[in-house]
């Protein structure tokens, strides 16, 4: 059996800053790493892996970031495929799903694809369903208590209204949440072995036949405007010696602003 774990090189959210002048997020200076949810993805894929099967990592990331995937590989991947996003301006979940689907098809004979419910930074929840759609496979989202028996996967779907137990035949796309499992910490020996695992880099156009234009078209997201949120301070200062008068002024101001009701 062949399992693919889709992982994302994500912005480290705790390090994300807003430029006070432009109100833009300082994306360029925010460090990136394999996301938190992706560790749950890897754990799920590695735990599910039946005897004699292989688990392959797949990511759309700049090829230069390969070092960042060391720990991911050490968690138990047999190899990693990076679809190089270095020269790729298109973004958005549709384009990502198109790339991942093409890569999975090229890998061939894949039985199971594991994704995170949503990435750490994009949080669109869109890639897995779009990927399933492209592959023409069922989607089993928010899975917990996952088990594999032959070609049938059973799991509990963690829905807002409760748990839903389902069984589904492979191939399928599975998504996991942070509650699905506790990711392992690779040992030094895991990391040493991971060094010898192959890392393959594919170019979207040369290897997957996805031209920049095609991806742009698939991406299909246009930014219209960026407003940001600005909270202007009123900076009103009430001064004087008469406490009672000051209190009344303050109260009037609060009433005028509808901060308190009459």
């Amino acid at each position, binding site marked *: 059996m062949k399992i693919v774990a889709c992982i994302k090189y994500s912005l480290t959210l705790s390090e994300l800053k807003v430029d006070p002048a432009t109100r833009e997020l300082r994306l360029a200076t925010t460090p990136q790493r394999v996301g938190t949810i992706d560790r749950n993805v890897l754990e799920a894929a590695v735990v599910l892996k039946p005897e004699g099967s292989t688990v392959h990592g797949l990511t759309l990331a700049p090829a230069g970031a390969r070092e960042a995937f060391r*720990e991911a590989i050490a968690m138990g991947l047999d190899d990693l495929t990076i679809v190089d996003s270095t020269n790729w301006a298109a973004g958005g979940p549709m384009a990502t799903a198109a790339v991942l689907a093409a890569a999975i098809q090229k890998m061939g004979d894949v039985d199971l694809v594991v994704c995170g419910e949503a990435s750490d930074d994009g949080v669109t929840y869109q890639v897995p369903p779009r990927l399933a759609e492209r592959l023409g496979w069922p989607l089993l989202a928010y899975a917990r208590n996952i088990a594999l028996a032959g070609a049938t996967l059973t799991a509990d779907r963690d829905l807002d209204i409760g748990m839903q137990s389902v069984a589904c035949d492979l191939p399928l796309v599975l998504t996991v949440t942070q509650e699905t499992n506790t990711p392992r910490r690779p*040992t*030094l*020996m895991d*990391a*040493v072995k991971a*060094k010898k695992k192959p890392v393959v880099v594919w170019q979207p156009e040369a290897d997957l036949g996805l031209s920049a234009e095609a991806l742009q078209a698939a991406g299909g997201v246009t930014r219209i405007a960026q407003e940001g949120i600005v909270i202007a301070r009123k900076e009103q200062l009430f001064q004087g010696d008469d406490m009672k008068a000051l209190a009344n002024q303050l109260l009037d101001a609060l009433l005028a602003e509808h901060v308190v009701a009459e």
Partner: protein
Amino acid sequence: MEKFDAIVVGAGPAGATAAYLLAKAGMQVIVIERGETPGSKNVSGALLFSQVYSEIFPKFWESAPLERAIVGHAITFLGEQTSVNLDYRDLDEGHVPHNAYSVLRARFDPWMAQQAEDAGAMLMPGFTVDKLLQENGRVVGIEAGGDALMADVVVVAEGTRSGLLKEAGLRTDEYHASDVSIGVKDVIALPEDVITNRFQCLNADEGVAYTCVGHTGGVEGGGFLYTNKDTLSVGVVAKIDAVYKSKLQPHAILNEFKAHPFISRLIAGGEIVEYSAQAIHRGGVHLIGQLYGDGYVVVGSAARLLLNNVMTLRGMDVAVASAAAAAKAILAAREMGDYSHTALAGYEQNFKATNVYKDMVTFKDTYPLLENERLFHVYPELAGAVLGDMFTVGAKPSKKGLKALRDDMRGKVSLWQMLMDMNQIGKGLVR
């Protein structure tokens, strides 16, 4: 069980250099670093002195992430409301490499580790080595998180906090609080052009370094201020025993230093973006720790190799020089197929032949200076007072220098004492 030719513990300047040189010579090397990336645990001032680096990493200045070339060094004496500056500028613009560059370790160390990796070493960040493995009194490998790795030779490059040797019963010489200082530092962000202008630099590639004495809460120590690209590194280094006797917490000492009008003007408008600390051994030729044993060598500040002559604090280049000396000895040991302490003894000889060691010998008389309390509170004040008397046109008749000095010294230090101290300074730094 995995076996390597060499295991290097720690990817600081010492470890990265050893790994680089050994891997380059064809050895199977693994470097284990406890930080999630090299440098993420490391704090220095930091000025990187070029000479030794350029011998090992030719043209490092072309690719390494350096902040600014240091074209100006100043020694500043801070009195309560005065400052006396001895300002040296290298005005010859053209030459590379410059004598020194400012660096930030979290950015610089990954570059060094990369050199080692490019040479073929295997870098393993994110793992703490828990102990050295021994067989019949010989170091044969390491253990990290329960996993054992074996090697012909282990390079201990753990830095000041080195605890592995002690744990293994291989180190008997303890640290003394009076030999170790604590360095605390703020990294303060300021726009690149503000720094360039404020410090009178030609452009964003040029920078300056201030070494300051005085205004550190009366605690024996000194302050520093170095310019980076768009940040300043501002810190104090104070002797640990002096700190606890003073009952002043390190960050309070740093705040006092930063509050001095001389410093506060230089950092005005800046935003602190990081607070860091690191213990630092005072180094010195008489305090060099043990350098090698059966199956292992100790390099960099793990072996207490450091050179502090008040004017400059050199640890990174000393670490590189020691690692290079050790690597040379290891390669010779490999030829012999013998990694016993006798085979590795060449390390000490190699190191003693370096200019770094010779510098350590040259400045051996500087160390008593660092113990001299008057240097930290009496003289900075005095220097300001005397020059103040000489420059100020006031209501009282002006005094000539010596008279001003005698008056200002009254009650603070005797003439005899000062002459003794001058002699000590002369012996330590000048003659």
